[in-house]
């Protein structure tokens, strides 16, 4: 995925939200945890900067795709946990479909000599 080198503005619009939702679909997590998860799974290909992570989380909150709640982390630290909502799951599915279609389209263009 050479197109998305980092989590900074190069991201296609909406992609970061999709990745966050995907992460949260596996279970609730806090901001740091989300960033770490995406970085690990992408084997350091995607580094999410906080400058994009938190605004993206606000957008998700505003759209009711996630809800936030203060809680305790695995090692008993206070943290703000984000949980995906039903609307968020629906949105995720939709975005995945769109993204697949987009990738397929790009691939076709690139594969045509």
């Amino acid at each position, binding site marked *: 995925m050479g197109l998305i080198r980092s989590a900074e503005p190069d991201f296609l619009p909406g992609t970061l939200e999709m990745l966050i939702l995907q992460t949260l679909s596996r279970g609730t997590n*806090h901001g*740091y945890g989300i960033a770490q998860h995406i970085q690990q799974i992408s084997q350091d290909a995607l580094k999410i900067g*906080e*400058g994009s992570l*938190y*605004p993206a989380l*606000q957008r998700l909150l505003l*759209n009711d795709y996630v809800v936030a709640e203060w809680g305790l982390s695995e090692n008993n*630290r206070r*943290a703000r946990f984000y949980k995906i909502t039903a609307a968020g799951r629906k949105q995720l599915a939709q975005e995945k479909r769109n993204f697949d279609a987009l990738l397929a389209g790009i691939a076709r263009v690139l594969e045509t000599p």
Partner: protein
Amino acid sequence: MKLWKRIRNLLNRRAFDRDLQEEMRIHREMAEEKLHHLGTPKEEARFAAMRAFGNATLAQEASRAEWTFFLESLVQDISIGVRMLRKSPGFTAVAILTLALGIGANTAMFSVINAVLLRPLPYENPQEIVVLRDNESLPNVMDIQKQASAFALGGAINAQPMDYTSGPEPLQIRVGLVNSGFFEILGVPPLMGRIFSEAEDVRGGPRLAVISYPFWQGYLGGDSRAIGRPILVGGNSYTVIGVLPETFVAPRERADVFLSLWVADPNTAADRDVHFLHTYWRLKKNVTLEQAQADVATIHSALAEQFPAEEKERRMRLLPLRESVVGNVRLALLVLFGAVGLVLLIACANFASLLIARGFARRQEMLIRAALGAGHGRLLRKLLTESTLLSFCGGAAGLLFAQWGTRMLLALKPRELSWLNGAHLDSRVLLFVLVVSVLTGIIFGIAPALLAARTDVAAALNEGGRSKTAGVAGHRIRKIMVTAEVAFALVLLVGAGLFIKGFSRLRSVNPGFNPSGVLTVYLQLPATRYREIPKQTQFRRELLARLNSLPGVQTGMITDIPLGGNYVGHKLVIAGRPPVPKGDEPLVQTLTVMGDYFRVMRIPLRAGRDFSEMDREGQPLVAMVNEELARQFFSRDNPVGSRIAWAPDIGLPQWMTIVGVVGDVKHSGLNQPTDPAVYTPFVQSDEPWKRFMTLALRTDNSSSDLVGQVKAQVWSVDRQIPVSDVQTMDQRMAVSLAQQRFYMLLLGAFAALALTLAAVGIYGLVAYTASQSTHEIGIRMALGGQPRDVLRWILAEGAKLAFFGILIGIGGAFALTRVMAGLLFEVQPSDPAIFFGVAILLALVALAACYIPARRATRVDPIVALRYE
């Protein structure tokens, strides 16, 4: 929903910031811990985590930005705007005052338009109600109702004065004689009790009365047991069965008590020839006015065939209810509204001009803002917020002016505009103010804002702040604005001038009588006791004798006094002329007189003689005619001695001999043509329904209480006769001038306002030019220029604008005043004297407005001027 969440967020902004800050701090700590865990020293781990996190403030700003919305930045702009405006109170006051005058005048005028033309009439589905333009007789109404398929129902009313004798003093009240359909058409349910039923609305039906709310309150004390109470009206006792709601007003009639026409006056009700009813018709669903018109026309042509004497000459034309209620006032109101719109445009031009000047003065501020990174759009928005803020304040202040203006309009209104009473501030008027204010702020703020926000930082810095170029475009726009102001002001002044000229023409119209020192009083004999003519004559003789015995009093009486708004028409036949087909005879004004009427009114006798004591019952019938009748029907012959008669329904004409010719009288209004008229003596009348009369009394003794004496004399003859409608003839003259006077005053006020605003606009521009040219003036003076040259040079600038403005204005006025033609009395809309006079007046005012600042500029000390920056 999102908006709601945003607003909630806005209200909990502090908690939001705290949460976000803490969340980010924890994020950093977690990263730091992980690094430490992987073996990085604690201190290093902390910095690494901070570096990795990046600009926390920016992240927080960006996160917060997700939640903000337009309202928030708007509030910010407004609070900054208020601060800016408070810092320059002079500018703010002038701008707000200018707009307040313009918006206030418009709002007052709009509330009148709203009341008269826009607000739905207070009846059920008023758009379905139509009106027959001409008055109808009840048999016609009943025939149309029976035969027309276009209408569900017809309502008819005639409002007339009658006496009310249940009170301590006999009083004249207004009685609406109606059919049972009248209230049903209007769809007004009674407040209490009920309305007449169809079964009760017949000859010989029960004597029942429906009363108005004001009558109930004023005469019956608002008694809740008023239903069932008897009241004496016109000498008969009627039982009150219903009270109408407070809000009820008949469309065109004023009445306190409503009676069934069939019950109260069965003979007139049955007479097809007495066309005295206003009629209202409700169209059936999906029937258009045109279909109904065709329907009525068919019915009328059948009626004309069946009753040629009564119907042949007549037409039946339907009008929408609104048109009949508003009548010719619509054009006048629209002209006035157009005029006041021009005033607003002038005010707006001044406003924009002020904004441009201010924008130029603030270019330093704009440069700094632009240099600090404010975008073009942001600056534009800020400036527009300020101008809209100003126009808003102007609108609010304008509302106060409008309140006051509306009250003044109501105080001045002529009788014809009684619907104006409904003029007050309602939601529609408030919406009007809001829309006008906002549009003014945006439309007239945009050009100044674009100019001010057009900041080329680099170029401006290079010019060292001495920029003149930035002001050039603004100055050109201001010149255009001022030219337009002058043009608009000229149009308004021409309009006002035309009205003033028309009014003075109208005032100098000879009414045909001398009104000064004449008192008029209306009397009506009740049908119960004065059914027969001899009884009426006896009353009249007795009363005239008593009144004439008062010292210095000369008395006459007439059926309908000039300028009173009424007359009776009869069809004329002339002896010895070839016969005219039945129904085609000419209609003439018919007036019945007694006593010294012509001498009291100072109506000159042109030929023959006046009526005398000898022209009495049993003697040969006599008549007098006016000059107009002599001119129309006798051309150059002397009509004295000729015989005329009313076209008879059946049998032979009752010939009357013309004994005299009197001068023409403006009977129907000073601006109306004189109709041919026939005067006959009361004593020879064969029309017992003429039980009404207006006394005309001339006295040389103005100190005595003539009204009290007249009342005493009337009541000494008959205690039960009300004395009403007491007015001097001068008052009647004033009333007949009132409508023209009203239009003239309003248009004059608007024109004065326009002239003032335009003068202020010219003054502002020239003063500004002069102050901008101080440097140049200094050079001229230093090089030996005389103050006179400087004066001429600056005056020329203003004079050029005024000249072009006047030129354009004359063109505009030629095009626009044409619409006023129908409102002007004997004045051409293109009256050259008015155009010329107004142009001179405007030129003088413009020159004066230029002279003051120009004069000031010449007093500049060259040394000071050269240093001036």
